[in-house]
């Protein structure tokens, strides 16, 4: 363990802003990368399901 107290951990020896900002950006990029294809998938599925229903009605 490199830190004695939680406050020290947050402070990161005065570099807290930089370290936490980096990790926060990393988290955002990772989450966006996962959420984006999942949303896309939902959109494709609803779109295609609608198309299939339309085709079924037409035939």
């Amino acid at each position: 363990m490199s830190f004695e107290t939680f406050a020290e951990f947050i402070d990161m020896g005065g570099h807290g802003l930089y370290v936490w900002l980096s990790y926060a950006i990393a988290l955002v990029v990772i989450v966006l990368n996962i959420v984006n294809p999942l949303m896309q998938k939902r959109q494709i599925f609803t779109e295609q399901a609608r198309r299939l229903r339309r085709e079924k009605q037409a035939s």
Partner: protein
Amino acid sequence: MAEKKWMPRWFYQLASPRWCYQITGKLLPIFAVAALILLVGGTAWALIYAPADYQQGNSFRIIYIHVPSAILAQSCYMMMAVAGAIGLIWKMKVADMVAKACAPIGASIAILALATGAIWGKPTWGAWWVWDARLTSMLILLFLYLGVIALNSAIESEQTAAQATAVLALVGLVNIPIIKYSVDWWNTLHQPATFTLTERPAMAMEMWLPLLVMVIGFYCFFAVVMMLRLRNEIIQRERRSSWVRELISG
């Protein structure tokens, strides 16, 4: 076709979007769990247990994001170009889709590498941006990604877009070593050798191990996102085939 005969069997199967969809469905949870464990564990290790650097103090902990993302951004470009080449030569649809899925992931990871590099630069150099050779190379890599994405979205026909971007990605791949060399050289010419972010004689084992964990974790994360995008792409392009219809209506 006769020219495919010497290919091993898995190559044929990989070429089938349906098989690819099924196999990624099985692999996805495995990689997702691995990525989660490695990234959470690696982050905890990096932030809490790894010792601070004697020169840079705790800002050194940014390396555990910066280096893996920089490595991943480069590998991702390579994968994109190779997949594009396979698609171009053997007309393998799945390879085209892999190449297309790579671009946005790679671009976002390159942005992450640049952002963390810039943030790390502030406490180290006292400025948000320094024309360091590695950062500059990464910036150019991001430009290459953006070019690929722009070209892909500008061409309407999916097939033409895939082929054109494959050619561009390959041209970029040939150029990357030249760009890297010239930027490195330019950097030594214009700046007295300051110490760079990541080049150091030898990293202590307790610093190096969490870095390794994070690198592997990032690769697993890439595999997960890659497969997610690939599966979307497969569904989108194979929407008229019977198995996709069943999948959607079922």
